[in-house]
C-alpha cells in the first residue's frame, strides 16, 4: 500500500491555491520529454522509449501479414494493446488487462486511427492480403500520466518503423523495405483537474489527487480524439479552453517526436 497517495491530496490542493505545483512547474507546463527511437530495433519494425519526467514507456511496432476486414477489403489493419505490468508500479498486478490498461490502449489507438496517421490504403498487398500493424505499449516506470507517455512512445515508434521485406509472398526476417507510411503526427495532452485548478501532465502525486482528467489528441489542424476520465467534472468552458491549450502545447512536443 502506497502510504503517501492517501495524504497528498490536501497538500497539493493547498499548494495549487497558492499557484504552485509540487514539483515547481507552471500549470500548463509538461515535464521534459526524452525520446530514444529504435530502442528494440533488432527485432521489431519500429520502437521507441519515451521518458516523460520519470515516467518511462517503451512502444514496439510489429508489422505482419493479415486478412483485411470484410467491409474494408483494401485497407491495412492497425491494433493497439497495452500492458500495465507490475514492473512499473506496486499498484499493478499480474493478470489479464483490466479497465485501466484497456482504456489506455483504446485512447492511444483512437488518436492514431482517427487522424489517419497510418496510411492504411498503402498497406494493401493483394486480394485478401494486407499489412497488419501491431502497436504494443509496455509500461516500465510509472510516475504519472502513462497515457501521454504511451501515446508519444507509440508515435515515435511509428515514425521509426520500417516495412518488412516481402519475397514471394513471404516475409524475410530481419530485412526491411522502406518505412511505414505515416501521414501526420497526432500528439496527446492530458490535463488533470484538482479541486478547481487545471494542470497539464499530472505527475504521480497529482494523479492520485485528481478529480478528473481530460486527454486531447491533436494534429496540426484537427482534434482527433478526446477522453475524459475520473469521477469529477469539467465545465463546458473548461472543455473548450483546453482544446486551445492542447493545440498550442502539441506544437513543441510534435517537433521533439518528429526529430
Amino acid at each position, binding site marked *: 500500500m502506497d502510504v503517501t497517495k492517501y495524504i497528498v491530496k490536501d497538500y497539493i490542493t493547498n499548494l495549487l491555491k497558492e499557484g504552485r505545483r509540487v514539483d515547481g512547474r507552471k500549470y500548463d507546463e509538461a515535464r521534459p520529454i526524452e525520446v530514444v527511437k529504435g*530502442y*528494440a530495433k*533488432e*527485432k*521489431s519494425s519500429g*520502437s521507441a522509449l519515451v521518458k516523460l519526467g*520519470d515516467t*518511462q514507456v*517503451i512502444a*514496439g*511496432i*510489429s508489422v*505482419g501479414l493479415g486478412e483485411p476486414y470484410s467491409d474494408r477489403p483494401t485497407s491495412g489493419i492497425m491494433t493497439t*494493446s497495452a*500492458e500495465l*505490468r*507490475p*514492473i*512499473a*508500479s*506496486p499498484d499493478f498486478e*499480474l493478470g*489479464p*488487462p483490466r479497465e485501466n490498461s484497456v482504456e489506455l490502449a483504446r485512447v492511444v489507438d483512437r488518436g492514431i486511427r482517427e487522424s489517419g496517421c497510418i496510411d492504411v490504403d498503402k498497406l494493401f498487398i493483394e486480394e485478401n492480403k494486407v499489412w497488419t500493424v*501491431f502497436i*504494443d505499449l*509496455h509500461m*516500465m*516506470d*510509472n*510516475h504519472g500520466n502513462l497515457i501521454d507517455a504511451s501515446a508519444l512512445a507509440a508515435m515515435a515508434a511509428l515514425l521509426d518503423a520500417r516495412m518488412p521485406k516481402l519475397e514471394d509472398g513471404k516475409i524475410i*526476417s*530481419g530485412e526491411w523495405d522502406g518505412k511505414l507510411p505515416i501521414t501526420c503526427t497526432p500528439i496527446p495532452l492530458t490535463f488533470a483537474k484538482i479541486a478547481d485548478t487545471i494542470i497539464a501532465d499530472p505527475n504521480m502525486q497529482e494523479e492520485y489527487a485528481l478529480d478528473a482528467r481530460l486527454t486531447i489528441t491533436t494534429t496540426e489542424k484537427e482534434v482527433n480524439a478526446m477522453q475524459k476520465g475520473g469521477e469529477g467534472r469539467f465545465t463546458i468552458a473548461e472543455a473548450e479552453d483546453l482544446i486551445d491549450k492542447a493545440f498550442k502545447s502539441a506544437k513543441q512536443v510534435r517537433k521533439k517526436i518528429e526529430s
Partner: protein
Amino acid sequence: MSGNTDMKLIKNGVRLDGRKPEELREIKMELGVLKRPQGSAYVEWGKNKVIAAVYGPRELHPKFMQNPTKAVVRYTYNMAPFSVDDRKRPGPDRRSVEISKISSEALTAVVETEDYPNTVIDVFVEVLQADAGTRCAALTCASLALADAGVPMKDMVVACAAGKINDHIVLDLGKEEDNFGQADVPVAITPLSKDIVLLQMDGKLTRDEYSKALNLAVDGAMQVYEMMKKTLIGSLNRKE
C-alpha cells in the same frame, strides 16, 4: 534445436557472427535504471535487452500464500510482444511460466529469506529484445537488481549457456546456433562455491560432450561474474 547439420554454423573455428568457439557475446550492465521499484538493473547481452526490477520484501497477499518461516521469492519472466521477430501475443505462455519457476528457485538458493518471514520478494524481468540466451541474461540481470535493492544474499547468481553446433562445443549460443544447433545447456551458478542453482539441457550430447559443455558454461558464467562485480562496485560513484 533442429540439429540440422546441413547448415554451416562454424567454419575453421569461426562462428557466423565472427566469434571464436569459447567467446562470449558483448555484454553491458547498469544498475538503478527505474525509480519506482526498490532495485533495478539493465543488461545487454549480444542483441538481448532485458530489464529487471525488484519490489520487496513486501507484504504478501493473499495471506495463505505466506510462509511463516521465510520470504517467498517470486520471479516473473515476460517477453514484450515486440521483442521477437514474429510478434508474441501479450500474456504468459508456458515457456515463460517454466522459466519463472526455475529462476525463482535459483535465486531462493542465495537470498537470506529467513530474515523476512511472511513477505514476498518480487522480481520482474522484462525481455525487450530477444536473441537466444534470454533466460540467462534475465537471471543475471535479476541478481543485479536484487543487489541494487539491498536484498541480503550470500552470493550472486550468474547464468550462461553453452551448446553444440556442427559437433563443436561452443559458448553462449546466438540465435541461429540455438535454432539450428544440436544442443543447448543453460547453467546458473553461485560463483563463490561454483554450485549449480539452475541447469537445463535439450538436444543430443554424449557424456563427454555434456561435461565439456557444462564446464564451458561455468567458465563463461565466471567471466560474466567479473563484469557483475565491476558494475556493483562502480555503481555508487555515479549516484552519491
